[in-house]
């Protein structure tokens, strides 16, 4: 599991690569926290290369959604594969997160 990071204008694009489970969740948490610290409050998380996410991973995402909300920032998710989208859907998280199909759409939402 690893995380890659790109900056486009004032948006931080975070790529999740591999699987997020209870083992790798703390590492992912750390890496996104660093991006958040140095960023300007607009984050896009791209799930294109993510195979699997456990509840530990969902917890990490919820934590950042809350932090960004509290800091008046925005978080958009994109490129979720059908299985992962279903996980979000069943647990009702599709109602909490702003989820877009493509990266383009997501970037537009963040004002790019």
């Amino acid at each position, binding site marked *: 599991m690893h995380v890659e990071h790109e900056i486009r204008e004032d948006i931080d694009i975070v790529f999740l690569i591999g699987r997020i489970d209870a083992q790798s969740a703390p590492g992912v948490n750390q890496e996104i926290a660093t991006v958040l610290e140095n960023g300007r409050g607009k984050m896009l998380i791209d799930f294109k290369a993510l195979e699997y996410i456990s*509840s530990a991973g969902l917890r990490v995402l919820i934590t950042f959604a809350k932090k960004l909300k509290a800091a008046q920032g925005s978080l958009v998710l994109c490129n979720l594969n059908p299985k992962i989208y279903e996980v979000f859907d069943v*647990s009702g998280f599709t109602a909490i997160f702003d989820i877009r199909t493509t990266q383009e759409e997501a970037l537009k939402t963040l004002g790019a």
Partner: protein
Amino acid sequence: MTRKILVVDDEPDLEVLILQKFRRKIRNNDFEFFFARNGLEALEQLRDNEDIDMILTDINMPQMDGLTLLEELLRLPCLTKAVVVSAYGDMNNIRTAMNRGAFDFITKPIDFRDLELTIDKTLSEMLVLQKGHQARNTLSALQQEMELAGRLQQSILPRSYPECREVSVYAKMVPAKDIGGDFYDFFFIDDDHLGFIIADVSGKGVTAAMFMGVSRTLLRFTALQGTAVDKVLSHVNNLLCVDNELCMFVTVIYAVLNVKTGELRYANGGHTPPVKIAPDSSLMMLPQTKGIALGVMEGIEFEEGTVYLAPGDLLYLFTDGMPDAENEAHEFYDEKRLMEFLGSLDQVAPASVVNGAYKAVTDFVGKGPQFDDMTQLAIQYQPPE
């Protein structure tokens, strides 16, 4: 860090020489020397000073010689390594000493530069051993914590099935290695109403186990007031959102069955809905009702669903540990296979459904490790004619 060295020799001159040759290291508190005149005195010193890092010992001494001392050291629980000082060319004694666990040897007359090198080498080795020992102790403590989390989880589950002729209940929770925080619960709210719950706490370990305890208590307490199913979830959700810095959440199904009429009311907090299995094995997954996992956001509204159970209908509830079970080829068991299994049952009865499904999943998983708790709850409605 001051390293402690025990020197064992019957010759008093050696003590004087060592204190002189190593005076700088002694002054800088790098080394602290202890002295014993024979093996017996050495053992006493070891008893009085538990943190001695290494021993430098002569072979020929009265009362207890160096080789016997080495034997005694093997019997003690301490990690301390010994270097022997032997006569030049005394291969027999050197071999015996090495076979009895000596770390190294130097010969007389003592070359103090060689001695210093040997001491440094031995102390480095000791540091590695000591770190390994500490790591093992930490691991042991963590394992004990896991066991505690496991016991906590078991103690939360109901200990016996409800005695009621209209329903038959069976449940099974098999925890993952790291305790995933699943639980189930059932209780009579009044003579006619059986409430039941299946839930899955996010994360693993002791934190999940504790959040599980809190969730289960809040749910049961609120449910026993006879509150409507959707209100139970919204109320408990608001309570769980307070002081939830770790952003833990729990997915839940809460349902109430009227055992006299077969009416089932249910509400869903982000969990896969229950499956209704008719006596002829036909399946129906109950319609999803509005709601999200509990503990994420305050003020969420939930929806109440209603369904009627016909005599012989069995309601099957499960957590994602079942469909998410993986075999060694990294294939998921998947909901599809689970539904196929449920639709192919010979006998629709709680124990056989639950045990059968568990066997089907574990057969599929084979030698793969269990990542998540596997929890199932089956409730069959059997009103008397």
